[in-house]
């Protein structure tokens, strides 16, 4: 599909708003990095050269210690292997470790000390470890990946429901509209947090059930806008024109009304991402979110606030959260500005 000149102008305008544009780049990079986190942040090395064979352990099954002559069947302890390699520099074996050589689930214990460990370059815990000796940077990266995927999934659910119902309300009007208005009013007043707490005490929520549950209660906001937008577009003459050449309702909806309502959906996108991340973080903070060992910012925040003596835990989580939410908000601001109808009308 070609982009309309209006869309191109909006993109140009978005690009000219530097703060939002750079934030957009930054977020894209963060997402990209976190999607391939196994390469940068992992206790498995990126490349191992052993007896003239190359191994890429980042992805895939575990490689047992036997493979590298360590004499055990379980997964290779790559830090030990590194020791072995370093002690025999002449063997020609080497490994390229990940930038942060810790996995988010791994409890790392340094001899003679108890966790949490403060940030240190020497131990390569760049942001320190949490109370259980797990590397904070590693948990932040993996936690970010889960949070952003979670909020995108949540957003998809709520957009699909919200757009469908909103568009139908605007398009059909009458009784359907009236009934769903009341349903939305009721749903909006349901205390979602309590519901999730109750459900979480019965079943352990996982990524999908949690997103579905939140999604079922978070589509209402968009519906109002979509309804109004559909109502408005539906009475405009180009829709009447389509109707007069005999276009079906289906066609009018998808070819005429929806494309002209996109601006609202796009404008809400970043703010929905923010609210998704915030929702997951706060649920995790309260302990009703994703189950225990999952890397999560909320859980980190919880550890940090209950152990304020180890400032690096809370500080890392708070700073990371602030940076990400600020970036997304900047993007949202720029999008809103770029889509401002006062600047670019249909007639310009």
């Amino acid at each position, binding site marked *: 599909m*070609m982009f*309309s*000149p*209006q869309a191109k102008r909006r993109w140009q305008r978005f690009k000219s708003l530097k703060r939002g544009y750079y934030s957009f780049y930054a977020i894209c990079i963060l997402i990209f990095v976190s999607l391939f986190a196994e390469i940068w942040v992992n206790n498995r090395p990126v490349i191992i050269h052993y007896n003239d064979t190359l191994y890429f352990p980042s992805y895939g099954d575990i490689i047992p210690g036997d493979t590298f002559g360590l004499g055990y069947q379980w997964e290779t302890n790559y830090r030990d292997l590194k020791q072995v390699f370093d002690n025999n520099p002449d063997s020609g074996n080497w490994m390229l470790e990940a930038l942060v050589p810790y996995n988010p689930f791994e409890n790392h214990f340094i001899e003679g000390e108890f966790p949490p460990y403060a940030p240190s370059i020497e131990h390569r815990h760049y942001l320190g470890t949490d109370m259980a000796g797990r590397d904070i940077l590693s948990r932040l990266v993996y936690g970010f990946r889960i949070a952003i995927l979670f909020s995108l999934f949540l957003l998809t659910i709520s957009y699909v429901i919200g757009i469908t119902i909103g568009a139908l309300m605007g398009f059909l009007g009458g009784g359907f509209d009236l009934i769903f208005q009341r349903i939305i009013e009721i749903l909006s007043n349901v205390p979602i947090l309590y519901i999730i707490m109750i459900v979480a005490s019965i079943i352990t929520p996982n990524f999908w059930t949690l997103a579905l549950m939140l999604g079922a209660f978070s589509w209402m906001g968009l519906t109002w806008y979509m309804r109004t937008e559909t109502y408005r577009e539906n009475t*405009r*003459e*180009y829709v*009447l*024109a*389509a*109707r*007069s*050449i*005999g*276009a*079906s309702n289906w*066609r009018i909806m998808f*070819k*005429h009304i929806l*494309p*002209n309502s996109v601006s609202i959906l796009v404008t809400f996108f970043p703010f929905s991402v923010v609210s998704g991340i915030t929702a997951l973080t706060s649920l995790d903070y309260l302990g009703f979110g994703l189950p225990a060992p999952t890397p999560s910012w909320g859980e980190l925040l919880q550890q940090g606030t209950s152990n304020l003596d180890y400032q690096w835990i809370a500080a890392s989580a708070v700073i990371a959260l602030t940076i990400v939410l600020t970036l997304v908000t900047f993007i949202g601001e720029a999008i809103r500005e770029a889509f401002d109808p006062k600047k670019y009308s*249909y*007639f*310009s």
Partner: protein
Amino acid sequence: MSQHNLLTVSGLSKFFPVKKHSLFGDKQYLRAVDNVDLYIKPGETLGIVGESGCGKSTLAKTIARLYASSAGEVHFHGANLTKLSQKALRSIRPKIQYVFQDPYESLNPRHTVGSILQEPFIIHTQLSLQEREAKVKALLDTVGLPEHAINKYPHEFSGGQRQRIGIARAIALEPDLLICDEPVSALDVSVQSQIINLLNELQKKMNLAILFIAHDLAVVKHISDRISVMYLGSIVESADSDELFKRPRHPYTQLLLEAIPNPDPNAKRSERRITGELPSPINPPQGCRFSTRCPMVEPRCHSTRPPLIVTDGQDHQVACHYHQQSFENWESPWDY
């Protein structure tokens, strides 16, 4: 009679419900179109004039069933449009097409001219993309637009050019009836004549019947075979174009004709004016709708509503109790 008519409208009404002032108040309706009869023969142009807010556009949209009617019938090609199912309606749509007033609003800003003009073919034919594009190019040629317009967007054109696009879309499927809802009132005067000439040309070429709506009598006279004058949702006078201009019988028509600016500085000007505002169509005046503004109003006008009656036999209908007196007193400000 109706055998020879392409379109016959009888008793057509469109009422819009109005918000009640109190919970127990009577349900009120805005009578936008009130009991309208008209007909169009194949290849003929019927002009409808009336001031803003008299229900011309609503009438047109109700005929095309862009609005559902409240009462009455619209017979077209042997089918009653007001009663057709959505599916049957969609299949008859190509034969009755609509040109909108505002060429800025009636074209989807997100579609190229090519895709706007292809849409009728996509919906109603099984043509391939190449065939459709060939059709679109032929259409653009017919309405006098360059071929490269195909990849442009509506906002890249002037008002007149956009109206040409709107007309091209309307004639794409070779309709029998074209409803033009003030197609030129949003355009410059110089462009107006081009569009009207284009419509005239198309009419000859395709044997189109046109329902032409305007508030400008001069424009309507130029294009119409017959003219109906509308006031407050009803037709007050209907006649052949020349007949209406030469021998108007309804005081409202006369006042409209007198109000046309005359370029001759020596021409005598009528002292009569239409005063006041159009009454509310929610509470229309009792009796004759025009009684509140009529210069020759009599007590009877306030109590009894005059029916639309045939006067001169030549298809000249008028709704006025005193049309005879009114006609005798009238002096044309024009030399025809």
